[in-house]
């Protein structure tokens, strides 16, 4: 039964554009989906290695800007009068390069900051996000600064000579986001259930012990940071090509906080946690819109968050899993085998 849940969920979500035609709701699904991908990437670091990246939005924004700039082209003069001109490239290359650049930044930040962990890691990530935001705001020649990068082309996939697929409509963007979400889910699942994932979990649970069984701490933390940043960058790229406009506000701290809330409420360190948490907190404002003013919406948002943290401190997904796992089977999974070992 439990094995079927992801497939059922996928089937349900794949059917959404078939019966839901309200563009507002579809838009809410798409933006929530993008944030969920970002939250999943944060979960890889926060949930599986225990490192809190409070500047996670930096990777999201870097993916968004890189992808947009690759597909729009740019013409900038660097220090010393070196002129760099980039002709627009196909949009999918923007997506790939955006993902890679974000992953590279994840490598750099991880390499630099995992020597100092805990509170210092949090500070380094916040500072990193702030620096990147200031660059986006002030390097007007490249990023248009507060004027925003506009007319970003929509995602395009295709083979030269065969045909192209443009992601203009909301329906097609919905499926694009769903596809990226599924791929990210599989990548994270593969990673977490591999030797690498075991090492990450061991690190989170007891670091000195993990070192003593031969786990190379920095290597695995950096690896987690690279994958996490790359997936966040992919989400950022989707965001840029869906909205078709981005400004330095994509680096707002609020987005990081939203991702953290999604991960914590859904259940950090679980594959489904960020999805469940993301759907709930992505749709509260939508659901509340019909009966509450914006101020009341945010109060509801806050209240629900507090209630979840108090009532389900480990998050929704672990609580539900515990509920379904009958207590009798949990306490003594293999009573027969136990008895056999009892008599030496």
């Amino acid at each position, binding site marked *: 039964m439990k094995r079927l849940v992801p497939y059922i969920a996928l089937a349900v979500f794949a059917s959404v554009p078939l019966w839901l035609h309200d563009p507002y709701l579809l838009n809410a699904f798409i933006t929530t989906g993008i944030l969920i991908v970002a939250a999943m990437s944060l979960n890889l670091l926060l949930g599986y290695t225990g490192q809190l990246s409070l500047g996670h939005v930096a990777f999201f924004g870097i993916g968004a800007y890189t992808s947009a700039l690759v597909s729009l082209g740019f013409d900038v003069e660097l220090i010393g009068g070196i002129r760099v001109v980039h002709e627009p490239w196909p949009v999918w290359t923007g997506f790939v390069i955006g993902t890679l650049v974000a992953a590279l930044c994840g490598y750099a930040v991880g390499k630099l900051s995992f020597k100092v962990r805990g509170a210092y890691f949090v500070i380094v990530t916040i500072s990193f996000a702030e620096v990147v935001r200031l660059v986006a705001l002030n390097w007007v020649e490249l990023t248009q600064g507060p004027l925003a990068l506009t007319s970003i082309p929509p995602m395009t996939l295709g083979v030269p000579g065969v045909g192209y697929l443009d992601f203009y409509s909301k329906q097609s963007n919905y499926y694009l986001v769903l596809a990226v979400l599924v791929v990210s889910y599989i990548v994270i699942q593969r990673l977490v259930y591999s030797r690498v994932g075991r090492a990450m979990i*061991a690190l989170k649970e007891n670091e000195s012990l993990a070192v003593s069984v031969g786990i190379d701490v920095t290597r695995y933390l950096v690896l987690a940071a690279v994958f996490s940043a790359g997936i966040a960058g992919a989400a950022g790229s989707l965001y840029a090509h869906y909205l078709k406009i981005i400004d330095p506000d994509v680096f707002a701290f609020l987005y990081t906080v939203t991702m953290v809330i999604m991960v914590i409420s859904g259940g950090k360190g679980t594959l489904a946690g960020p999805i469940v948490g993301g759907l709930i907190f992505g749709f509260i404002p939508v659901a509340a819109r019909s009966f509450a003013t914006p101020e009341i919406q945010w109060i509801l948002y806050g209240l629900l968050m507090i209630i979840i943290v108090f009532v389900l401190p480990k998050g929704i997904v672990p609580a539900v899993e515990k509920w379904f796992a009958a207590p009798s089977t949990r306490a003594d999974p293999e009573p027969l085998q136990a008895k056999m070992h009892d008599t030496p």
Partner: protein
Amino acid sequence: MLHINGLVCRYGKVEALKGVTLSIGQGQLVALIGANGAGKSTTLRAISGILPSAAGRITFDGHDITKCSAREILSKGIAHCPEGRRVFPDMTVDENLDMGAYLRTDRREIAADRERIFGMFPRLAERRHQVAGTLSGGEQQMLAIGRAIMSKPRLMMFDEPSLGLAPNIVEQVFSIIDSIRKSGTTVLMVEQNAYSALEMCDYAYLLETGSIVLSGSGKDLIDDEHVRSAYLGG
């Protein structure tokens, strides 16, 4: 087998080890005793490569391992059973044992070794699917020992194996350590429970504020006036 020469370790500006020199012979059980803060755990941490050493030389089987990483040292055959939180609390007993074999790739033998450990500790076999955090203190210590065995070490280091355990469990743990030594594995043990440690060891070192002040057979140390008054309670 293991030789340490003039080992110096620092935590910031504090010199925790001020030139420790000791050796362990093949198949021996060597005890390292001393008061809190004498540098016993630091010595083990330096040997296993968790803590970098500021000066001195550590050789294992003739190879210099002073600058090796924890991973390399483990793969050379030195396992470390750290004190305090000894297991991965959210992993099952099975998974904890597998973590001990993290650097090994011989799957079939790993499975065989796991069963062998369950033979040694029937209590663990009963609880193999239970998460380790729910085990009793004694069971957690057994699991920690089992996990160390899983790495197939030639030298096993125990840091305070009796800490926080009930007296009857302590005895059990010591007898397991003794049987590990009898099976041919060399053992280095740090213990506050000085009397038991001295009684069972082949050779012992006494650490005081970062230096070895006395060494000899376990019996020599038990008979020593200073050891008697300071560590054995008169």
